[in-house]
């Protein structure tokens, strides 16, 4: 189940950056956007190193989760 949640980062990322949230969560959302960008960068860089899309995506999801947990 946890893996499924991890692999749904894309969906969570979309939800968290949707501008319908209350104003008080604006700063947090900006942080989430950074985490999304970091996940995208990780996936792209790892693919450039010859990693499979699948594995790079797993690392990107893990990176995203760790980043969000640090916010």
């Amino acid at each position: 189940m946890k893996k499924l949640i991890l692999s749904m980062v894309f969906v969570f990322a979309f939800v968290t950056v949707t501008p319908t949230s209350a104003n008080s969560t604006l700063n947090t959302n900006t942080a989430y956007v950074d985490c999304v960008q970091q996940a995208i960068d990780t996936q792209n860089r790892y693919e450039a190193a010859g990693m499979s899309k699948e594995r790079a995506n797993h690392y990107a999801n893990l990176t995203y989760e760790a980043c969000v947990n640090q916010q």
Partner: protein
Amino acid sequence: MRILYLIIFTTFLFLVPKTIRAQKMIGDIVYKASVPKSFSLLKKQKGVKTSEAVKNTTISLDNAIKKNIGKISYKLVFNENEAHYKLNSTLGSDEGFGIEAAKIATGAFSSYYFNIPNNQVLKQTEAYGQLFLISSDLNARKWILTQESKTIGSYLCYKATSTLVTKNSVGTFYKPVIAWYAPKLPVPYGPNGYGGLPGLIMQLKERNITFYVSKLTLNPKKEIKIRRPTKGKKVTQEEFEKIGEKSKLNFVKMRN
């Protein structure tokens, strides 16, 4: 005529036990993995820039993998017709960042089912929020068999080499794979979906990760059950790659 009978009888004596042994080849194997101290997910590449965030992420992942890879093991159960390879356990650890990183490094998101009569390998994998079943031929991989040998445990093993071909959004990459197989264990199975050799793979190096047999039980007293996986969306490797690309594009669209 007597000599002829003697030859036939002697041949029979030699062949029958081998046949019986082959038919009773049932096993339960634990594979573990290791990485060298110099292990890193990224190496310097000409013309490829790495952001500070990705550099820091990679350092964290590298350290997590090196620290936790020893806590992960995989189990291969097999008989003469079928085998199943999957994550076994994570020894005394919570499911934190470190363990997750080591699981990804060793391919824990996939399990493999081998079927010799059908010449088939079924990969069941969790990716992009879905469960997939990807079928391929057991003998599809081209191996180069060499005469180089070494002993692993009590088994004489021979070296075989192959190439891992990875197609992703950037291009096609080729990386060497080295396997050591034991002809005395005449089953074409191995770790991480690798197989098709004239003996069990006792050690395998893929990228800079080495998989090795840490425990081997032949003909265990406990009954072995091998179940063919059925859950997951059935796709070809090509279709799976396209789904991966589509997921990434959707993500980028969401980000923008």
